[in-house]
C-alpha cells in the first residue's frame, strides 16, 4: 500500500468514526424527541394509536432516514479522495493520484503530483462531520422544549393553584333532594374536556372518569359504566370507596404506585401529591365513621360528601383532568372540613369503634352506595335527555314558535286578500280607467289608437332600373380641344 493510499485510508477511518458518532447522536436525540412527544400525547389523553403509533412510525422513519443518510455519506477510499479534493480545494489532485497510485509503473508526473499533495495537505486539514451542528442543536432545543415547555407548567399550576370554576350549565328541573355533592361532581364531568370517550356522556360515573384517563384500572370501570345495573359492590371495588379507611382498602385509590405507571412521571407526581394528603383523608374517613356511629340522619349525605371528596381526590390525581381538579379539590376540602368539624365534638369516638359497629358501618355504606348508584342513574337519564334535546331559545331556529303554522293558500278562488293594502288601492278616482287597474278589461278602444285605412295597390308600367345618366356636356371653351382629340384618335390611347 502506497503512502497516499494509507493517508486516504486513515482519513476515511476518521471520517467514518465521526459520521457514526454524529449519526448516533442524531438518532438518540431524534428518538428522545419522539419519546417525549409520545409521552406528551399520552398525557394529553390521546388515543393509543396517536400517542404510541405516530411516534413509533416517526421513529422508524427517522431511523430509516438516518440509515440512508449515513449510507450516502459513507466513504470509500475514492470517495475520501473526492471529498478531500472538494473540501481542501485540491482540484481533483487526490482522485487523480489515487488512481495512478494503484499502477505498477506510474507515469513520470505522478511523483510530482504526490509531492504537490503532500505540500498542500500539510498546510490544510480535512474537515470531518461535527457531532454538534445546527441539526443536533435544533433537536436538543426541541427535546428541551417538549420536556419543559407549557404543559408541564400547566399541570403544576393546576396542582398548586386550582383554576376558576367554569360556568356551570343550568341544572335540570328535577334535581335530587340533596344536590350539593352531586353539584360538586357534575362540573367535574362537564368540565373535563380531555375525556372525550363515549362513556363519559352515557355514564358519568367516577369509574368512567377513571377509564377516560387511560390509567391502569380501567377494565372493571369500563364494564360498569356500560352497565348501570351493576351492583354497587362491584363499583366500589374498582372505584374509591369509604372502605379506604382500612389500610387494605386504599390500594387502588390511595396507593400511587398501584395506579400511576412508572413510565409516567407526571402521574407519579400527581400521585405523590395525592399521597401527601393521605393523613387528611384518613381523618375525613375516620370522621365519617364517627358520624356513622352517632347515627345521625345527615350521615348519609355527609358520607356521600366524604365519598365524593375521595372520588374527586382520586380523579384529581389523574393528570388528564386539569380543570376538574380544582373543583374536585374544593369539594373534597369542604367535605373533609365539615367532617372534621363534626367529628371534633365526639372526641374519642373513632378510637372506640368496635367490630359490630364496623359491620353496621359497612352495611350502611353499602346502602348509601346503592342510594348513590340510584341517584346517579337518575342523573344519567336526565343528562342524556337534556343532551338529546337542544334547549329552545327564543328567536333562534330552535324556537318552535318562531314561525306560525303554515296555512294552505287559496289560489284557485283568488278571494284571499292581499295582506298589504296601499292607499292608492282605496282612493277614489275621478275618471274610470278602462284599460288600467285591477279588474276585467272593459273592451273599449281608446280614440287615440291609430286607425287603419285600406289602400289600393297596383303594379307600375315603368321599369325599376334607372336610365343611364347623360354625359356631362362639354363646356364650349373646351369644345375645340375635344374635337381635335376626337380627330386624332381615341382618348384612352392618349391618356398617360
Amino acid at each position: 500500500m502506497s503512502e497516499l493510499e494509507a493517508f486516504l485510508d486513515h482519513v476515511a477511518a476518521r471520517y467514518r468514526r465521526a459520521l457514526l458518532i454524529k449519526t448516533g447522536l442524531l438518532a438518540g436525540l431524534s428518538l428522545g424527541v419522539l419519546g417525549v412527544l409520545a409521552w406528551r400525547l399520552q398525557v394529553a389523553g390521546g388515543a393509543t394509536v396517536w400517542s404510541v403509533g405516530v411516534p413509533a412510525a416517526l421513529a422508524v422513519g427517522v431511523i430509516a432516514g438516518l440509515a440512508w443518510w449515513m449510507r450516502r455519506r459513507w466513504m470509500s477510499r475514492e470517495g475520501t479522495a473526492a471529498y478531500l479534493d472538494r473540501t481542501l480545494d485540491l482540484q481533483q489532485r487526490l482522485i487523480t493520484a489515487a488512481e495512478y497510485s494503484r499502477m505498477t509503473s506510474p507515469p513520470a508526473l505522478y511523483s510530482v503530483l504526490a509531492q504537490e499533495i503532500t505540500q498542500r495537505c500539510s498546510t490544510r486539514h480535512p474537515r470531518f462531520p461535527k457531532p454538534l451542528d445546527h441539526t443536533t442543536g435544533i433537536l436538543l432545543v426541541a427535546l428541551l422544549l417538549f420536556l419543559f415547555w407549557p404543559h408541564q407548567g400547566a399541570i403544576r399550576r393546576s396542582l398548586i393553584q386550582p383554576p376558576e370554576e367554569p360556568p356551570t350549565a343550568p341544572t335540570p328541573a328535577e334535581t335530587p333532594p340533596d344536590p350539593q355533592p352531586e353539584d360538586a361532581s357534575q362540573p367535574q364531568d362537564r368540565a373535563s374536556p380531555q375525556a372525550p370517550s363515549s362513556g363519559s356522556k352515557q355514564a358519568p360515573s367516577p369509574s368512567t372518569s377513571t377509564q377516560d384517563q387511560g390509567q391502569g384500572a380501567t377494565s372493571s370501570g369500563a364494564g360498569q359504566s356500560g352497565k348501570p345495573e351493576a351492583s354497587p359492590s362491584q363499583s366500589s371495588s374498582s372505584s374509591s370507596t369509604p372502605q379506604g379507611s382500612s389500610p387494605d382498602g386504599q390500594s387502588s385509590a390511595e396507593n400511587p404506585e398501584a395506579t400511576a405507571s412508572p413510565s409516567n412521571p407526571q402521574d407519579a407526581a400527581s400521585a405523590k401529591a395525592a399521597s401527601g394528603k393521605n393523613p387528611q383523608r384518613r381523618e375525613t374517613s375516620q370522621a365519617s365513621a364517627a358520624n356513622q356511629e352517632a347515627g345521625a340522619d345527615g350521615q348519609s349525605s355527609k358520607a356521600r360528601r366524604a365519598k365524593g371528596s375521595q372520588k374527586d381526590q382520586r380523579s384529581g390525581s389523574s393528570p388528564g383532568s386539569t380543570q376538574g381538579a380544582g373543583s374536585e379539590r374544593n369539594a373534597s376540602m369542604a367535605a373533609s372540613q365539615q367532617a372534621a368539624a363534626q367529628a371534633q365534638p365526639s372526641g374519642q369516638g373513632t378510637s372506640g369503634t368496635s367490630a359490630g359497629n364496623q359491620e353496621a358501618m359497612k352495611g350502611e355504606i353499602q346502602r348509601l352506595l346503592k342510594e348513590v348508584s340510584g341517584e346517579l342513574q337518575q342523573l344519567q337519564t336526565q343528562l342524556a335527555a337534556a343532551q338529546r334535546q337542544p334547549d329552545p331559545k327564543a328567536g333562534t331556529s330552535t324556537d318552535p314558535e318562531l314561525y306560525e303554522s303554515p296555512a294552505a293558500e287559496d289560489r284557485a278562488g283568488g278571494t284571499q286578500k292581499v295582506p298589504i293594502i296601499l292607499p292608492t288601492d282605496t282612493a277614489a278616482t275621478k275618471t274610470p280607467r278602462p284599460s288600467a287597474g285591477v279588474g276585467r278589461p272593459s273592451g273599449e278602444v281608446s280614440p287615440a289608437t291609430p286607425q287603419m285605412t285600406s289602400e289600393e295597390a297596383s303594379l307600375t308600367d315603368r321599369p325599376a332600373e334607372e336610365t343611364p345618366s347623360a354625359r356631362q356636356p362639354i363646356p364650349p371653351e373646351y369644345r375645340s380641344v375635344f374635337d381635335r382629340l376626337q380627330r386624332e384618335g381615341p382618348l384612352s390611347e392618349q391618356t398617360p
Partner: protein
Amino acid sequence: MTQQHLTVPPEEFRKTFAALSEELHRVIVGQAEVIERLLIAFFAGGHVLLEGVPGLGKTLLAKSVAHTLGLSFKRIQCTPDLMPADILGTQLVVEREGRKQFEFAKGPIFTQVLLADEINRATPKTQSALLEAMEEHQVTVSGTTFRLEEPFFVMATQNPIEMEGTFPLPEAQLDRFLFKILVDYPSAEELSQILRQTTVVDIAAVHPVVPTERAHAWILNARRLVREVLVASAVEEYVVRLVTSTRPSDNGAENAAKRFLRYGASPRGAQAMLMGAKVRALIHGRIHVSFEDVDRVLLPALNHRVVLSFEAEADRRTATDILTELTEPLRTTVTNT
C-alpha cells in the same frame, strides 16, 4: 521516473507559455482569451479556425504566432479560383542533364505555420486539399506522398457576415480544426491602445521566444509533455458525458439536443477537449486535468462540431447557446459532487 527525466519540465512549459502570450500581447491588444486558446490548440497539436469580421487582427495574430515560435510561416489567400495545386504544389516538367523529367514544386502548404485566409472563399475542392494535410500531416500528389514538416499548424480565418461568393466549410473540414475561436471586437480602451500603437512611426514587433534553432525540438517535447499530463477516470468520464450529451439520437438525450441539433459532436471533439484541457492544466501550474479545465475548453472544442437543426436557426440560436444549455446541468452536478 522523476521530473528530471522530463525533457521539458512542466514549470518551464508554463513559463514559456506565459512568455509567448506576453510577446503576442505586444502586437495584439486585448484578445487575451483568443491568444490563450490559440496557443493551447498549437501545443495540443491541433489547428484553429478563427472567425471574426475583417480588421480584428486575425492575420497579424497568425503571423505573430509563427514568428514568436520561431517557425516558418506561409499564407494562402483563398479565392474561388484557387486550385488544389496552388496549395499543395504541382508536377513540373524540367530539363536536367538533357533529359526532361517531372519535378514536384512544393506548394505553400509545405511550411510549419500556414495561414489560410478567408478559407470559406475557396471552393470545396480546394478546401478538401487541406484535409489530408491537416489530419495526417502529409500530402499526396500524383501518387506520391510527402511528409509535412513538424510542427505543422494551420490557422484559417473566415468572415461570418459576408456569405456571398463563399463556400461554407464541410463538416469533415470543420471537424479537423481542434478549436474554433471567435474573435470579437476590442473594447474602447483596447481600441485606444491599438490606435496609439499602430499609428506611430515605431510599430511594435514580436521576437522569437523559442530560439529558431531549437524551436522544433522544444515544441515537440512540449507536445509530448502535454500528453503526459495525468487525467483521472472521473474527468475522462465527464468529457464523455459532455460529448454524448450533444447527440440528439441517443436514448437519454436532452430535449434541447433533440430540438436544436441534427448531429452531435464526434469522438474527435472529445479528444480535442481532453487535449486542450491538458494544456490548460499545464499553463495553470498543474500536471493533472481538473473539471474546470474541461469546462474552459468545452465551447471552442465543440461549437463547430455540432450541426444545428432548422428550428435552432429559425430561433436564431447559436451553437454556443445550445451547448451551454446542454452542458450546464452536467457541470453543476460535477461542481457540487
